[in-house]
């Protein structure tokens, strides 16, 4: 009923290859973009921005990044927190070293630096795989956090060991520092997220993505049909780390403003992003959004429900949240290993045929 291909004729290769081949999907996508860019900036307030929207936008970028590595290329990484820290500290060093250059460029450059670091820590993936690699990426996590904690050059010798973002503007509107307005901050993150999603979606549809998926599905077979594992794996690490670095930079500069590395980018951050990818769906860009939204909203909902409505102490609510998140991950893996994205795919199939059963 809603999801008809009937009457939707493709007359060129370009039309046949577009990201959303079904008309309904395409218009829904335009509608979401329009609401995100034209409606929300006018109604957003500080609570919604800081509690829901900013974390969602920033984690979604990180989840897209990790999904490329884990979901598309099959290399499990537990170093996401460390790579986000690289993005944050790179952005901080660039911001303070070159105050005249736009913050947007700094964020992108921070992504680039993170990509380089990611490739470095991705090198062992050529020799080891599976759990061994997952544990090897823990080395990145702990080493990077230690590095940013112990080498004063990274935090400009500040007494507290923290880094805090100086005020920077985009087109004359402040986006970092103390005096930001909700809509500007929101738009900056939204632009980065939209760009990331577009790039990631098109990369994974193209040759690069197919090589990654070939490596994921069976690396030996991929090598035999001519996929260079060195390039495929390292490019996955580079692209993935780029997005994670961008998200780390935004997380520090735009969202928190001031961070202490062990607290903001610890091992828990790595797991959080990994859970987003698992719950959302491995190997799906939409899944990254869904997973990020789910895990950002869940604590807010639980807190509002348990602490706000029922008046429970916050620590009980926090423990309950751990239990629920843990149980949900297990339930998802048992019931639907492909995550929220798969539920969405099934729903689409059903809608396509509705109201007929077959």
């Amino acid at each position, binding site marked *: 009923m809603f999801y008809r291909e009937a009457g939707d004729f493709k007359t060129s290769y370009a039309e046949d290859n577009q990201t959303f081949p079904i008309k309904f999907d395409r218009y829904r996508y335009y509608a979401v973009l329009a609401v995100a860019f034209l409606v929300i900036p006018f109604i957003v307030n500080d609570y919604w921005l800081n509690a829901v929207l900013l974390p969602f936008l920033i984690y979604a970028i990180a989840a897209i990044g990790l999904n490329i590595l884990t979901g598309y290329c099959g290399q*499990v990484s537990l170093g996401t927190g460390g790579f986000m820290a690289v993005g944050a500290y790179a952005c901080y060093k660039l911001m303070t070293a070159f105050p005249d250059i736009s913050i947007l460029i700094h964020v992108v450059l921070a992504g680039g630096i993170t990509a380089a670091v990611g490739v470095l820590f991705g*090198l*062992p993936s050529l*020799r*080891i795989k*599976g*759990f*061994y690699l*997952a*544990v*090897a990426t*823990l*080395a990145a*996590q*702990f*080493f990077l*956090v*230690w590095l940013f*904690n*112990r*080498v004063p050059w990274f935090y400009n010798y500040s007494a507290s060991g923290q880094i805090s973002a100086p005020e920077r503007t985009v087109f004359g509107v402040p986006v970092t520092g103390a005096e930001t307005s909700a809509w500007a901050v929101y738009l900056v993150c939204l632009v980065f997220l939209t760009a990331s999603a577009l790039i990631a979606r098109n990369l994974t549809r193209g040759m690069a993505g197919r090589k990654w998926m070939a490596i994921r599905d069976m690396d*030996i*077979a991929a090598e035999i049909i001519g996929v260079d594992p060195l390039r495929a794996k390292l490019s996955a690490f580079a692209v993935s780390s780029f997005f994670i670095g961008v998200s780390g930079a935004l997380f520090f500069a735009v969202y928190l403003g001031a961070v202490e590395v062990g607290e903001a980018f610890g*091992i828990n951050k790595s*797991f959080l992003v*990994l*859970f987003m990818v*698992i719950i959302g769906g491995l190997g799906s860009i939409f899944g990254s959004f869904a997973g990020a939204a789910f895990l950002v909203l869940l604590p807010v909902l639980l807190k509002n429900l348990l602490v706000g409505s*029922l008046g*429970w*102490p916050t*620590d*009980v609510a926090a*423990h*309950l*949240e*751990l*239990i*629920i*998140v*843990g*149980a*949900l*991950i*297990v339930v998802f*893996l*048992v019931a639907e*290993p492909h995550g929220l994205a798969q539920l969405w795919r099934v729903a689409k199939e059903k809608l396509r045929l509705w109201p007929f059963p077959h």
Partner: protein
Amino acid sequence: MPDQLIFAMEVFLNGLMAGVLYALVALGFVLIFKASGIFNYAQGVMALFAALTLVGVMEGQVPFSHLVNAVLGTEIHHFGWHVPALLAIALTMLVMIALAWAVNHFVFRHLVNQEPIILFMATIGLAYFLEGLGDIMWGADIKKLDVGLPQGINTIIDEYTYNLFDYGFFIDNLDIVATLIAAVLVAGLIVFAQYTKQGRAMRAVADDHQAALSVGISLNWIWVMVWSLAGFVALVAGIVWGTKSGVQFSLSLIALKALPVLMLGGFTSIPGAIVGGLIIGVGEKLFEFLIGAPYLGGATENWFAYMLALLFLVFRPQGLFGEKIIERV
């Protein structure tokens, strides 16, 4: 003898002791990995959970009292009795067996034949669940655990080394006891695996699930047994760690160190877990002492183990004692 060398020797000995503790946690990993191919990330949290439960039982805490108080507005905390350590350990073991059954029944039975990485992620979910459950059952504050293990400086070693070098080594009694416990545990596990019927069945399952199934071994029973054994190892590790540094969340983080230990020793080898643990323990303490603290600003223990394992793996992916990884197409 120069002071530096004597200090280094003391650090070396202390590293050996720390290594034994890593090895204790790593043992639990190896058991489960061998028998079911599950890489049990939750092993560290299981140790924490076991220790929390043990303290709770000994002190006569009311489980979930915090939650119950919050919901019903009551003020209950303790039953008011104290359970002797041995009985409490037995009761905690029962809880760990129940946990093993539940884990197998509700989670891993449904995940048979899934990819290893999916199983691994399920154990991460399990780790979160257990962490939350432990906190909500017994409260999240740091607890003291004392089951009567000896603690404090070992005066015999102190005096002996003082007579020898004019400098008394500081070796904790608890570490010595831990070493003995670990030795007994390993010997017991090896005897169990080699000479008992259940142990043989366990090794058969580790070798080939389907073949084991076809000769009449119940996979479910073996898995529950293996998880119970891992729960037992976790309990021992929890007792030793908990006595040493208090029962607190960081216990499960320290247990993460068991991962590089395993990578060094090989995932499938019990002796590998021990040797790997010792190498990591000594390596990180010596590195901190010789290079980390003087030149790198200290706290290198946080990452040294992982880096060592990482570098090591690049040259020998199967670890020291692991079975050679053979890939067939």
